[in-house]
C-alpha cells in the first residue's frame, strides 16, 4: 500500500505493508537512519520520534496509523526548539556510545515542550521509558536542566 507522510516538514510517499512499523519505514525505506532499533517492543525508547510534537515509539507505530500527523525525527529536530536540547547534550557531553541518544533527545525535547521547567519527578516519568547501557543518565538529567534553564532566559 502507498502512504503519504510528512517527515521533518517534507512530503514522502512510501509503498509498504500497513503493519510495517514506522521505525523500519524511516530506516530502510527512507534512509533516515538516525532513529534506532533497540528492542522492537517499546521497552527501550531508542526509536523515539515525535508525532505532532508528542513523543512516540516508532517501533510500535504501524505506518498505516500515522495518517496526516507530522513526523519529526532526530534529523529534523534542529529546526525546532529541540535545537536547544541538542546544544545542552553537547555542553554536558552526554553521549558515550551514542546509540540510544536520538531517542533520549527526542523524549527530552517532547518533555520540555510540555513542561518547560520539568520537576525531577516529571523527568523521571518521561525518561524512565528509555534505556542507556553506557550510563549517561546523570548527564542526561543535567542536560535537561540546562536546556530548561536556557529556555527561561
Amino acid at each position: 500500500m502507498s502512504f503519504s507522510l510528512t517527515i521533518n516538514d517534507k512530503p514522502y510517499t512510501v509503498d509498504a505493508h500497513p503493519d510495517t512499523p514506522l521505525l523500519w519505514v524511516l530506516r530502510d525505506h527512507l534512509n533516515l537512519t538516525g532513529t534506532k532499533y533497540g528492542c522492537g517492543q517499546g521497552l527501550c525508547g531508542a526509536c523515539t520520534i515525535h508525532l505532532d510534537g508528542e513523543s512516540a515509539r516508532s517501533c510500535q507505530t504501524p505506518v498505516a496509523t500515522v495518517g496526516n500527523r507530522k513526523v519529526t525525527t532526530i534529523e529534523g529536530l534542529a529546526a525546532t526548539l529541540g535545537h536547544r536540547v541538542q546544544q545542552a547534550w553537547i555542553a554536558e557531553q552526554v553521549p558515550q556510545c551514542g546509540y540510544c541518544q536520538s531517542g533520549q533527545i527526542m523524549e527530552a525535547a517532547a518533555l520540555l515542550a510540555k513542561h518547560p521547567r520539568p520537576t525531577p519527578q516529571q523527568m523521571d516519568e518521561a525518561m524512565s521509558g528509555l534505556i542507556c547501557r553506557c550510563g549517561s543518565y546523570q548527564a542526561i538529567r543535567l542536560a535537561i536542566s540546562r536546556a530548561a534553564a536556557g529556555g527561561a532566559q
Partner: protein
Amino acid sequence: MKTGLTRRDFLQTSALGGAGLVIAFYLPAKAELHGQGAPPSFQPNAWLQIDPEDNVTIWVGKSEMGQGVRTSLPMIVAEELDADWTRVRVEPALADSRKYGNQLTGGSTSVRTSWEPLRKAGAQARAMLIAAVAQSWGVAPNSCRTESGSVIHEPSGRRAGYGSLVEAAAKLPVPEKPPLKNARDFRIVGQSLPRLDIPGKVDGSARFGIDARAPGMLFAVVARCPVFGGKLAHFDATRAKTVKGVRAVTPITSGVAVVADSTWAAMEGRKALDVTWNEGPHAALTSAEISRRFARLAAGPAAVAREDRAVDAALKRAARTLEAVYEVPFLAHATMEPMNATAYVHRGSCEVWAPTQFPSLAQQVAAKIAGLPPEKVTVHITLLGGGFGRRAEADYVTDAVEASKAVGAPVQVLWTREDDMQHDVYRPASYHVLRAGLDADGRLIAWTHRVVAPSIGAQRGEKVEGGLDTSAVDGAADLPYAIPNLRVDYVMANTAVPTGYWRSVYASQTAFANECFLDEIAAVAGKDPVELRRALLNKSPHHKAVLELVAEKSGWGQPLPAGRFRGLAVHKSFHSFVGEVAEVSLEKDGTPRVHRVVCAIDCGLPVNPAGVASQMQSGIVYGLSAALRGKITISKGRVQQNNFDDYQVLRFDEMPQVEVYIVPSSEPPTGTGEPGLPPIAPAVANAVSAARGQRVRKLPILA
C-alpha cells in the same frame, strides 16, 4: 520512495559523523580541488598527515564504542606533535594490522598500549618539522621550539605554520628515537577536552553498524536453533517466500537467513518460515543443574593458582574460622545496538561494514568465507552502539558474509533483540568457596578462595595448561591484602552455554567474592571495613590510596540519614585501581535503592579526565544493572530471557548520584573501560547486607 544514494555517497556518509572521508577517497577529492595530482602532504607514519592548509588528520586504529578513543588517542598524537587541536580531524582506520598494529579494542588496553607508539608518532612529525625549518632557515634545530601548529625560531621570533613545511619535511628521514615531551609541558593531554564524536551523536548523523547502506543492499534476519549446540534439521521456505519483500531464504552456518527488501519484511518472513531443529545433546540443560554441578565440583580436585605458606595448618590453629559461598549468574551483554554487520562479496573482493571490537578477526573470518586472502577484504569499522566485549566476536560478521555470498548482493544481517539476548556469549556463571582464619587477637592469618567457573578460553578450544585458566582467577590470585597463609585455586566447570568476555571479564566475579567476604571478616573481627583493609594494604600503596580517597570523599564513618547504609569495595583490574562506596536504603518492600556512589580511581596520568569520569559512571551503571537484576537463566537448553522486560537494566529513575575522584598521578596511563565495574556489586552488596542485617552472597541482589 527509494533513495538514490550512489556508492560514493555511501562511502562518504558512512565515515565518522561529519568528520570526512576515509583516506583513499579523501585524497582524490582534495586533488580535484587543486586541479592537479594530490597536493604535497606530510605523512611520516601511519597515524597522521598534515596538509599544506595546516589541517592535521589523525587515524584511530581502535574501535569507538563510547569510551572516547576517537578523542583520547588523537590527543596523545596531537600532544607530541604540538598540533593546533582546532585543526585536528579524526578518521577511523580500516582493518589493517600491518599498518596499525593490534586493533583489538578490549581489556582496557587502548590508551595504555597506544601511549608510547602514538607519542612517538607525534614526536617524529614534530622533530621533522623542526628539522625542515632549521634546514631552510639555516638555524640550529635546538634554537627552535613548537607551539600549537607552528615552529618558532626563538632568537629571531620567526614563525612557520606546519602547513608551510609539509613539502620540506616530507623529504627528511623519519627519526627512530624522536625526543618526547616532558609531562610538565603537556597542554593537551590531561585536559578535559570535548569529545569529537559527540556532535554527530546528537543530530542523527553518526553512523553505527546498523546504519551502513550500500546500493542494492538487502536486509536479513537469521532463524537460529534456540538450544545451545542444536543444528538445522530441515526447513521449507515456501511460506516465508509468500511474504512480500522476501527475496531469498538460504541456509548459513548459524541457521537459516531470510533475506528481504527491508528488515521488517525479513522478520515477517522468518515468522512464516517452517523450520525444524535437531536440538542436540543439551536440550534438557537447566540453570539449577549447572548450579548443582558447580557445588559438586567445588568439593573435588582443583588447580592451585597461588599458595602462600601453610594455609591448611593456619586454618587448623585459627581461633576462629569462617566459610562462605558466593554465586553469580550468567549475564548477557545487551548492547543497545544489537549485533549486526553488512557485507558485500563480489567478483573477487569482499567489503564489510562492521561494528567490531576485533577488526582483524572480522577480516580473517570474511576472507575464509569469501575464499580470499585477508588483505583483499576491506573492513570498515563503524561506530559501535556499545561493545562491552560482545563485539570482540565475529559471529555476526560470519552471518553477513555468508548471506551476501549466497545471494550475490550486499546484505545487512541484523539480530533482533531476542536473537541478541538468546545467542550471546555469556559472562560465565561462577561459584566461589571462601574460608578465612582469625587468630585470638582477631588478625586475619589464613584465606582460601576456590573459583569454580567455566573457562572462556578452554570452551573455545584454547589450550589451558594443568586445568588452570589463569584469567579465571584474575582478581582472586592477585589478592592485594597481606594475609600470611593464602591459597587460591580453580576448578574448570565448562558447560554447553557459550561464554565470552563481558566488561571486566572474571574481575566481575572475583571482586564480588573477595570484597564481600572481607566485610564478613570485618564483622566477625569487630573491625571497621575501611580499617581492616587499610591495615592489610601496607604493601599495596595504590590500593591504599584509592581506599583512603574514597573513604574521605564518601564521608566514611560519618553519620548518615536514618535508614541509609554504606558499603565499600576496592579492586584493581586492567592495571587500574578503583575504590567505590555505595549508599543504599531499603524500600518498604525490602527493595534496595542506591542513592549515591563515590568512586576513586588511579589510572596513572588521566589523558582526558572528563573521559575517565564518564567511563567510571559507565562501569558503575553497567555493573549496577548486573548486581541488582542481571540474570540469564537456562531451561530446556535455551536462554529464558528475551528482551528488556525480562532482562531488566538500570533506568533513569534508579540512577544514583555518582561522584568520581581521580588520584593525581604522573605514571603512564592505564585503562578505564572496565576497572570501574568490579567494585560496584560488592560495594552495593555490602551496603545491602548492612541494611538487612543478613549477608548478600548471591547475585543478582533482587533475585
